[in-house]
């Protein structure tokens, strides 16, 4: 079988961190984490509870997904087991196991900025679309992964111009505890070049896996701060035949992760 693409590796990484019975919200416009969650669903997590738009559903009986980019579509209503109002969705977050965040900027402690670029509130250089629900969700969800499509000094910054959702705050082991947040905070930052976790003490981003074809030098060059670099950077354990097969034949049937 053809080797896994960079995007496929990221989806498989997500899949391996999904547990059976998890409750997960599939965001719109995030095909890689969506593929990862669905791969888990069709392999080891048949009891997933999925929140797609305002539909509450389980898709373990779906044989193949025809278009991964269209999962967040009102046509999903046909699989719905429940409709949830926006209020009910927020009521459900305390039971949510995993969520995905993103940002125009993400800083070394996993804080995110979707408000805009510029430090002067009255005169920003560029306004982002806004945080949607992330400020509240990232404060309260059990755990979350940060997903960014661009790994550059512009997106991975020392300090965000604005902060729309807190990761580990100003760092340190009590980075979140001092706010009293009920949620567990960000566990991983997934970029096209690498996967990071957070150092237990400093709560700074720490390189976990390089993603091909990136090199350590490229990571250092393209990150706007100094991430923690462990003495030995392990490789991500390779995809199994089952993972690749289910991903390609049932989840990503159009091959959008192989582009």
């Amino acid at each position, binding site marked *: 079988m053809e080797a896994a693409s960079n995007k496929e590796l990221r989806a498989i990484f997500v899949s391996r961190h999904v547990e059976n019975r998890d409750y997960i919200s599939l965001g*719109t416009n995030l095909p890689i984490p969506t593929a990862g969650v669905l791969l888990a669903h069709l392999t080891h997590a048949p009891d997933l509870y999925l929140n797609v738009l305002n*539909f509450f559903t389980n898709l373990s009986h779906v044989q193949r997904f025809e278009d991964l980019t269209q999962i967040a579509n009102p046509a999903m209503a046909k699989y719905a087991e429940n409709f949830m109002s926006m*209020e009910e969705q927020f009521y459900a977050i305390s039971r949510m196991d995993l969520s995905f965040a993103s940002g125009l900027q993400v800083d070394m402690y996993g804080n995110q900025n979707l408000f805009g670029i510029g430090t002067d509130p009255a005169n920003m250089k560029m306004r982002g679309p*806004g*945080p*949607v629900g992330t400020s509240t969700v990232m404060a309260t969800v059990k755990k979350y992964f940060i997903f960014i499509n661009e790994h550059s000094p512009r997106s991975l910054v020392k300090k965000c111009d604005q902060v*729309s959702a807190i990761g580990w705050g100003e760092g340190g082991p009590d980075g979140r505890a001092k706010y009293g947040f009920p949620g567990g905070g960000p566990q991983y930052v997934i970029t096209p070049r690498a996967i990071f976790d957070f150092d237990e003490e400093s709560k700074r981003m720490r390189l976990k896996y390089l993603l091909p074809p990136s090199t350590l030098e490229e990571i250092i060059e393209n990150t706007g701060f100094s991430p923690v670099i462990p003495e030995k950077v392990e490789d991500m354990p390779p995809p199994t035949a089952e993972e690749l097969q289910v991903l390609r034949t049932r989840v990503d049937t159009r091959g959008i992760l192989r582009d």
Partner: protein
Amino acid sequence: MVSERHSVVISMEEAVSMVKDGDILGIGGFVTTNKPMALLRSIMKEGKKDLALVAGTSSIEVDMMIALGLVREVTSSYVGAEALAPILPFYSRRAGRTFQVRDIDQGTFITMLRAQILRLPFLPSWGPVGTTMPALNPLIKPVADPFGGPPLMAVPPLAPDVTLIHAAQADIYGNVQHLGAVYCDPMLARAAKKVIVQVERLVSNEEIRKNPGATTLACKFVDAVVVLPYGAHPTASQNYYSIDAAHISSYVKAAREFFADSKEPLEEYLNKYIKQPESHIDYLESVGLKNILGLSLEGGL
């Protein structure tokens, strides 16, 4: 002796006259689904101005109203069109310049509506804690936890003067059924002083009572119903039609060009779809029956 129960069905003209310059305008729906576009087009055509838009998750409707110079303030957690346009030109470039943004996230937005619904002067929210939201939005203030924990952030109530909603069906008394997800619509309606609902079709009261559990807005929360089939176009209408992605993209393209080479495409768009049509039917004709009937809900997945 017994007078009859009254109908709340009104015309588009009557509906638009319920909106005044300066109003706080609640807009239902979710990003590019179930937006009350027909009512909004009439409001835009009439040029109602100084509007404060309250739209939790919004899209081109907000961007267009900014383009037309009708907006003094936006309270929203998201203005974009997802894959079609992660960022919308007028919102992104004119925020803080021609209008104020009340920065908020969706959880905090719901909290403001809930405070209004319960007539509470404040409610605490996790959303702004630790973030720069309080610096961006001076309505947000710290509140002490009386049980001794760290302080939280509090928001005041938010009450739209008029909330506009798009839904599948209603009876003449104003009992509304979405036949699908309701988004923030029930909260936006409960928090508002007046509520106008545009529906795809009118049904009998008996039809409503066959499935009272499907009623998403009881008539007490609905001041007026306007029958506007295909009224959510170019956004999707749950159970009726999908988004008109080409139409939305044509607006986004025109709006982007406004800030690049040429102001003409936007002017053409606004003329053709907002200014010239004399009625909702006129608008649908300018879009074209073939385009409209092609927006099936099938496929996907």
